[in-house]
């Protein structure tokens, strides 16, 4: 995005670039002007790309040893764990990789919520990101079914049965999804096929996500529009690449901690029992990253109602750019939104906690209050707040508060009319 178009230095480079401008693309990625005040919450995009590639590579080699058949799948996982060279390592990277992927994506999403990265002109980035998130959940769910343990089987039964709540066509849809009258071999083989496909769709969406990001450029912690390139920006390489790499290193250390010291802490012991269609485990829980939605599902005493709220809680996020109309992006300058942001975090964590607990007594009450608050936050608080909140004055540039001393009030962008005039 420099002012002069890129021209390769070598003759061959120029010949090639005239026919396919790959070198122009790589020059763009290097020079890409990035706000100089990006903090470490902005490193999770790179970390997530790493997670996706890790899952694809480990998944590719696991598929060389895994057998997708109801009678053989469980044993083939044990075969990978015991017989295949480094099979234990590859499987533990893949299974813990899913959890780390979701950990990173939740931080990435909440970063966008705090700094208003979903707001104009970045709505399309946000929507593509949410589609990636939904596909991630589908992929992770189907991947969890493949070991064909008790949790795999009963998790698959409960989740596919969600569709049976749809009036009239629900039964037909579940039978179609199962390829039979219950979760069985046909279900397993199609889940394997789709589990292999979806990551590549995600990869395609990630490319669109980054493309859409490079049109307006990055948001930044103070959430103001900046001139690009200017003294407020730095080139992506080497400034951001090195920062991203450092954060990635820390992330990989934590990731390795799970792989080598507690590889099963995020799994469930029942999944080391082979699937049995006659016995339901006493307590079915999904993987931790789906727990808040599971709590929402269980908080409603009506089947269809629970399913509707579950899907609504996910799809409501797609409408977020139009629910929060505040012109000020960053929560740094939104004193009241900032409080509600943290309340939402506590709400989601509480929902996740009760999602793992039995649906009764106090847990059920917390789940109901939490669910009500979740929708209240997006449907009432955000639209209302964006009208009445008195935001703090915005600086004119990233450099201004540092180099310009205290900004003159008359120069400030603010919601209120300048009083000092």
């Amino acid at each position, binding site marked *: 995005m420099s002012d002069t178009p890129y021209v390769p230095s070598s003759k061959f480079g120029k010949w090639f670039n005239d026919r396919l401008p790959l070198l122009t693309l790589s020059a763009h990625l290097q020079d890409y002007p990035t706000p100089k005040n990006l903090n470490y919450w902005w490193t999770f995009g790179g970390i997530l790309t790493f997670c996706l590639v890790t899952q694809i590579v480990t998944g590719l080699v696991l598929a060389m040893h895994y057998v997708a058949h109801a009678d053989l799948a469980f044993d083939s996982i044990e075969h990978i764990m015991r017989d295949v060279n480094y099979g234990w390592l590859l499987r533990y990277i893949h299974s813990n990789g899913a959890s780390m992927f979701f950990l990173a994506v939740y931080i990435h999403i909440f970063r966008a919520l705090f700094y208003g990265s979903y707001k104009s002109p970045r709505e399309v980035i946000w929507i593509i990101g949410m589609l990636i998130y939904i596909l991630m959940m589908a992929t992770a769910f189907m991947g969890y079914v493949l070991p064909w343990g008790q949790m795999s089987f009963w998790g698959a*039964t409960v989740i596919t049965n969600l569709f049976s*709540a749809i009036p009239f066509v629900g039964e037909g849809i579940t039978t179609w999804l199962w390829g*039979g*009258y*219950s979760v069985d071999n046909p279900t397993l083989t199609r889940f394997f096929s789709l589990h292999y496909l979806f990551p590549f769709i995600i990869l395609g969406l990630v490319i669109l996500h980054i493309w859409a990001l490079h049109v307006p450029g990055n948001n930044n912690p103070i959430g103001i529009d900046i001139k690009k390139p200017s003294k407020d920006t730095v080139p992506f390489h080497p400034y951001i690449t090195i920062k991203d790499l450092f954060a990635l290193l820390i992330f990989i250390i934590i990731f390795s901690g799970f792989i080598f010291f507690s590889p099963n802490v995020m799994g469930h012991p029942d999944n080391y029992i082979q699937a049995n269609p*006659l*016995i339901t485990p006493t*307590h079915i829980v999904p993987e931790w990253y789906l727990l808040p939605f599971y709590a929402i599902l269980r908080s409603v005493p009506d*089947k269809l109602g*629970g399913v509707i709220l579950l899907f609504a809680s996910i799809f409501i996020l797609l409408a977020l750019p139009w629910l929060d109309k505040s012109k000020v992006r960053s929560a740094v300058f939104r004193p009241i939104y900032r409080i509600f942001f943290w309340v939402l975090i506590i709400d989601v964590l509480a929902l996740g906690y009760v999602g793992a607990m039995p649906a009764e007594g106090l847990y059920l009450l917390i789940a109901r209050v939490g669910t009500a608050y979740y929708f209240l936050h997006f449907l009432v608080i955000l639209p209302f707040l964006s009208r009445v909140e008195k935001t703090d004055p915005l600086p004119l540039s990233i450099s201004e508060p540092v180099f310009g001393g205290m900004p003159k009030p008359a120069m400030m962008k603010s919601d209120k009319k300048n009083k000092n005039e």
Partner: protein
Amino acid sequence: MDKLEKKTNRRDFLFTASYTVGAVGIGAVIWPFVDQMNPDRSVKALATTEVDISQIEPGKSITVLWRGKPVFIKRRTESEILEAQKVNLNELPHPEKDEERVKKSEWLVMLGVCTHLGCVPLADKGEYKGWFCPCHGSHYDTSGRIRKGPAPTNMEIPKYEFVNNNTIKIG
């Protein structure tokens, strides 16, 4: 002017006809790719199961697998039958008489699948002494009818018949 109009109409017809044929063709090609996911012939072939029930004592039940789903066959005691029959239908979320749910009042044959999200309920548990689903807390009575919890309907009764006094054919 007249000629021009005619030409346009004729072209419109050709466009519409082409689009229609194209849409039908695309639909016809997509359908096999969708329908291949429906239950295949080998799955449908496993449609019936015969069960020997001579060894079941009163108050006991067995679970057999039919079409990959558990079927409860329960030999009910007098008190359980009585309890199931005397329930006021107005109290039921899904009103069904006990007599409509059994062929012989001693034998309750039903799909052991919770109508909420498909878990297998546990026998002789819950507030109505019938079944209790541990997944999301649905309580069923001694006739397998939903009494409390998120499940929308009573547990389903499969198609079955008594081949003789000791054998049931499900499906």
